[in-house]
């Protein structure tokens, strides 16, 4: 170290968040007696501009060369204060933070406990700060391309925005068509726009956009690299149809030997399809796909005298020899828009979803009323000759939401309104139907929601406050057993159709995405954003952003807004063309390295290699760190037998003084 450390310590009050329990004056007095400390100040809000100005002025006037800010978590404001140092001409890595808010004042309400702990934390931070070193922030080129995972409305919107800005986008969708959940909906609340009418033009846009490469029926297999330079392996699953030849005529599906025998996922399994199928008429791309789990030829190796689809296909597009294809692309940023699954109501057996065909989910209802649905938009229950219009319809809200018994404590945000919308649609289709909604609370929080809820009630929809305890069958009628909690009256109401307003859950395969991109989950199991308020689309992995319901339940306007936000954030590295690489990388001491190579084996990024150097006339092996690959985790350092490899900013020589400071008995 070239110069003697002159440490400035800044103790933040954070309004009263810290000052109410930590005696700031006492901490200041304590800090001023720590070795190397030149200036100690306290201020109401260190992160505010006047607070940062204090630091900048002191660096200049007092010639400070190390800064300790005792305030909130470094995960919150480390970057803010690094910038402050940089503005004042000091290397940003001369900063150390003492977390006296999240780890102290907020968790220890007793000042007698909080103040001594705050002192210790400050003392540890000062001890480390004295040993800090200046680091250089390097930049590498960023790819000017992005990948969007998930082709629902969130993914489509993100992809369109990035592509419109002039960057190449790879849009990966695992099902045969883009569209996602929004394409399954009939009308959208509260405006009653037809979902398909506003969705399909966007679907066509992504397919035709010169900057978008649409990869449907494809899955991301592997992601390597880092922000600006991700290498992504995508597996394009075999469709068994040559999409260049397929003209979408549908002859194949009409002639399939298992026609209308396979539940159609797109219709929430209400309708049926063939083994070769187009998920829905407006699918993009409008190309057929063979379902390998149900196709007779692919599962049994035999389909009559030969697959009929192949026989009738006029363009010869069907190719059972087709194999999965792997492609590798390089992108600068990734947007995760993988969406949601609806709650499976068989986890609430009291509602009899598995026992009674006339107990259905909200999504099934959506397909039943949709003009493109299996009934052509006619609301019918029962099959064949018995098909009839329901006269008494019951909706049950909060099925799988706000319910700790199924592990979902959160509100799914859309069910109150989609129930109101479906109730309205039923009244439209069957005007004399009696529609009752059983609810806990109605949450009509969005723009136009309350007005819509009012309108629906005026249309004669009955709202009964109560959470039904059971649905059972009496003769041929379903009975909803419930207590009206506003009048404290137990009721048993008849219904011919019960719609369960199922909540939103993370995708079943969310785990795979987490492993691919090293994401975290919040306690509701949705993907976690970097900060719930200030970084709502960022994740803990730089260069990976979240859009839509993958991050948490939301309605379409919120999803689109977030998708646009994620697109804007993803475009930052794309438009700069450069990204900062980790400065806190590992460094090798060639004088003591014995070339054993343990570090090369444990490095998760293969960032270390052995090289041969001439050491006073001897050829010896030493480790060498590739700074572009190193992420600074420090795993190498703990494995090193001779303490010869050390992560910058987390060296033994920087951590040991912290241990000493905390170890001292107070």
């Amino acid at each position: 170290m070239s110069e003697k450390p002159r440490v400035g310590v800044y103790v933040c009050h954070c309004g009263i968040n810290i000052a109410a329990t930590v005696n700031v004056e006492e901490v200041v007095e304590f800090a001023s007696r720590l070795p190397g400390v030149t200036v100690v100040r306290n201020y109401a809000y260190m992160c505010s501009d006047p607070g940062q100005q204090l630091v900048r002025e002191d660096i200049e006037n007092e010639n400070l060369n190390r800064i300790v800010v005792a305030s909130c978590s470094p995960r919150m404001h480390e970057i803010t204060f690094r910038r402050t140092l940089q503005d004042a001409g000091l290397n940003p890595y001369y900063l150390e933070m003492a977390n006296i808010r999240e780890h102290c004042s907020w968790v220890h309400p007793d000042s007698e406990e909080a103040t001594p702990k705050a002192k210790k934390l400050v003392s540890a931070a000062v001890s480390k700060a004295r040993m800090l070193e200046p680091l250089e922030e390097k930049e590498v080129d960023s790819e000017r391309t992005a990948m969007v995972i998930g082709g629902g409305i969130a993914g489509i919107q993100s992809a369109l925005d990035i592509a419109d800005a002039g960057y190449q986008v790879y849009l990966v969708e695992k099902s045969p068509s883009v569209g996602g959940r929004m394409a399954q909906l009939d009308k959208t609340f509260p405006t009653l726009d037809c979902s398909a009418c506003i969705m399909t033009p966007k679907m066509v846009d992504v397919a035709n956009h010169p900057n978008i490469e649409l990869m449907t029926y494809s899955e991301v297999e592997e992601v390597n690299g880092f922000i600006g330079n991700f290498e992504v392996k995508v597996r394009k699953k075999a469709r068994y149809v040559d999409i260049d030849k397929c003209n979408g005529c549908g002859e194949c599906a009409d002639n399939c030997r298992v026609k209308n025998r396979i539940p159609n996922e797109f219709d929430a399994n209400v309708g049926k399809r063939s083994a070769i199928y187009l998920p829905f008429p407006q699918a993009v791309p409008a190309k057929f796909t063979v379902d390998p789990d149900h196709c007779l030829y692919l599962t049994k190796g035999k389909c009559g005298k030969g697959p009929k689809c192949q026989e009738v296909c006029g363009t010869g597009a069907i190719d059972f020899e087709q194999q999965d294809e792997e492609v590798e692309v390089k992108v600068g940023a990734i947007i995760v828009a993988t969406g949601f699954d609806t709650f499976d109501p068989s986890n609430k057996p009291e509602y009899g979803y598995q026992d009674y065909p006339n107990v259905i989910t909200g999504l099934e209802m959506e397909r039943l009323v949709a003009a493109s649905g299996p009934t052509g938009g006619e609301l019918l229950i029962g099959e064949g000759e018995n098909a009839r219009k329901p006269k008494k319809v019951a909706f049950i809200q909060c099925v799988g939401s706000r319910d700790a018994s199924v592990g979902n404590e959160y509100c799914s945000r859309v069910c109150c309104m989609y129930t109101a919308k479906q109730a309205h649609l039923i009244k439209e289709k069957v005007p004399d139907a009696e529609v009752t909604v059983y609810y806990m609370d109605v949450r009509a929080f969005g723009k136009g929601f309350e007005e819509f809820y009012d309108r629906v009630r005026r249309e004669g929809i009955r709202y009964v406050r109560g959470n039904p305890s059971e649905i059972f069958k009496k003769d041929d009628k379903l009975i909803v057993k419930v207590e009206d909690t506003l009048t404290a009256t137990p009721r048993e109401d008849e219904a011919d159709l019960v719609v369960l307003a199922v909540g939103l859950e993370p995708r079943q395969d969310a785990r795979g995405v987490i492993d691919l991109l090293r994401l975290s989950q919040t306690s509701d199991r949705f993907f976690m954003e970097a900060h719930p308020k200030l970084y709502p689309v960022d994740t803990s992995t730089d260069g990976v952003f979240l859009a839509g319901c993958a991050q948490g339940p939301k309605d379409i306007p919120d999803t689109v807004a977030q998708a646009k936000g994620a697109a804007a954030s993803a475009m930052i590295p794309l438009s700069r063309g450069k990204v900062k690489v980790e400065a806190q990388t590992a460094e090798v001491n060639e004088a003591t390295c014995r070339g054993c190579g343990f570090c090369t084996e444990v490095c998760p990024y293969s960032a270390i290699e052995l090289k041969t150097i001439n050491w006073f006339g001897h050829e010896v092996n030493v480790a060498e760190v590739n700074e572009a690959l190193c992420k600074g985790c420090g795993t190498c350092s703990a494995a090193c037998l001779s303490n010869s490899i050390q992560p910058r900013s987390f060296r033994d020589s920087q951590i040991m003084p912290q241990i000493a400071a905390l170890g001292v008995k107070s």
Partner: protein
Amino acid sequence: MSEQFEPNIVAFLCNWCSYAGADLAGTSRTHYPANLKVIRVMCTGRINPLFVLNALQQGADGVLVSGCHPGDCHYMEGNMYARRRFRLMKDLLEYLGVDSRRFHMSWVSASEGGKWKEVVEKVVDEVSEIGPFEQFKREKINW
């Protein structure tokens, strides 16, 4: 001892999961004992077993290492190395005649503020029970 023994515990937390989990405990205003103080490292894989011994030498009565759940490591596999290393650490401590309950390891994710509180309470309880640690006592080292 007339006063109740208040152990001094040093914790090493990884930046991405456990440190964030402890932050969440703070943001949610959960309350837990103040005996435990945290040193932040980027990954539990960084934690040299010597840190643990050193903390005990410097006057800590107990040590906690906490990181991401196995499989959730921000650096893919750092916590796996930590898991093996500190499994051995417990044996080493036993061998040295140190009650291995002075050393704890836990997995706390960024969303488990509640679990962090439980971990702290458990560690503090167990170390309080064993009493002060004097075995490694030596003169203070000036680093």
